[in-house]
């Protein structure tokens, strides 16, 4: 019953939101208002429920569930796993984030082909976004603990930091163009400064997030791949090392921040 009310409320708010956004300061106040009104029920909660169901439903050629998936804390341990990703995995020989690790489990446990597991990952309410939301919420209230101390994690964080400052493309953008100074905005959109650990924590702890302007939940991979699109680069591959390197560096910057995902964003 509560869920039905939430969906109705969200739909009503979205109607209003579409008009307000992009016009004036009302947009900024608008988000604060959504947050307030949705305090007891973020539309992303529905994604979490769907992710939880997907986790325990036998699927794929092997007709298996994901319940034995090892997200870094051992097979089947979901509690606190998101707060400790990305991390090094011996079995795949890679530093992986939550998205790429879920794909590994869909391949090894359920027998999906990797291409099939990843297909349409960015479509609204995709299985992967639902699964990521479910896993993230199981770390709610826990501090991010991803200091990148394993040598391969440290290497990925260092590469992520280099990539953060890497300019390319027809507008010369790097991540630092938009995210390396305090109190900056593009038009009216506020930009976190990821060089400042306090701002990194405030941002990173709220993902995945329900994006009001998209009427959909976005995971961190989706967010970063969209910023890369804004840089006028081609889409980075889902689960690619460039994305994981940036995430490893961002999580390291945000270490200590207490997770409160799913968030609500513009």
């Amino acid at each position, binding site marked *: 019953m509560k869920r039905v009310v939430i969906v109705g409320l969200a739909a009503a708010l979205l109607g209003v939101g579409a008009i307000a956004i*992009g*016009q*004036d*300061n009302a947009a900024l106040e608008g988000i604060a208002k959504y947050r307030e009104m949705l305090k007891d029920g973020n539309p992303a909660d529905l994604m979490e429920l769907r992710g939880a169901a997907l986790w325990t439903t036998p699927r794929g050629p092997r007709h298996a569930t994901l319940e034995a998936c090892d997200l870094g804390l051992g097979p089947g341990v979901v509690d606190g796993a998101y707060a400790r990703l990305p991390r090094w995995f011996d079995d795949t020989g890679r530093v992986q984030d939550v998205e790429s690790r879920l794909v590994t489990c869909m391949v090894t446990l359920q027998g999906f082909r990797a291409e099939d597991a990843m297909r349409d990952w*960015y479509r609204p309410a995709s299985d992967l976004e639902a699964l990521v939301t479910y896993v993230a919420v199981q770390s709610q209230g826990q501090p991010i603990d991803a200091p990148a101390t394993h040598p391969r994690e440290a*290497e990925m964080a*260092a*590469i992520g930091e*280099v*990539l953060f*400052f*890497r*300019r*390319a*493309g*027809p*507008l*010369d*953008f*790097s991540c*630092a*163009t*938009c995210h*390396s*100074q305090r*109190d*900056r*905005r*593009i*038009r*009216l*959109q506020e930009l976190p400064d990821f060089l400042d650990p306090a701002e990194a924590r405030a941002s990173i702890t709220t993902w995945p997030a329900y994006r009001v302007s998209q009427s959909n939940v976005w995971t961190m991979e989706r967010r970063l*791949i*969209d910023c890369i*699109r*804004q840089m*006028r*680069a*081609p*889409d*980075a*591959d889902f689960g*690619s*090392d*460039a*994305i994981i*390197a940036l995430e490893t560096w961002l999580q390291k910057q945000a270490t200590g921040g207490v997770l409160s995902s799913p968030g609500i964003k513009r």
Partner: protein
Amino acid sequence: MIGRRSWLAGMLGTIALTVTAAEDLHDRAEAVVRRSFSTATPEEWRTRLAQDEVQALCSRHRDAPPAEVAARVVELSRATLRYPDNGRLMGNWREGEKLASIGTGGHIGRIQPDRPGTRKGGNCYACHVLAPKEMAAGNLGPSLAGYGKIHGTSEDAVRFTYQKIFNAQAWFPCTHMPRFGANGWLTPDEIADAVAFLLDPESPVNR
């Protein structure tokens, strides 16, 4: 004396090691970029992800180049400057005003590309206050409200403003402002229109 020399050798050794480590990290980062965009078409790959010398230098120095690097960036940037065929550096402010608020164009990829033929704008409002009545202005760059009232329309003012928009790095190495003309994002005539938007006494920037 010997002690001092070996200390020096040690220091130089450490510096050399640090430099090699930094080069090595840089190479690994480039390798990561190369293997992370496999779905892009080969041409887009090269043009959009490869760095020119200025981009590479600014990235290496995290946008704060030491003096000799800054001088190199300015030299390379000045060499890119080109002007409209008719020689007029101040065009039509109404066209410039349109350009200043167009934020579309040039988005590629599979997920959310622009429709073919979408106009590329200067999107100046993303980073600057221009006409004071436009509230939706960003602040990555300084406010340019009343820019023409301050600078006037002398030949020098017009030339500087044109060069600044054509290639901001001819004046400010490693600035965050895009090199609109040098990168072929805006044409010389479009840049002249943007100059007029900033400097023309009739433009809303100056009223």
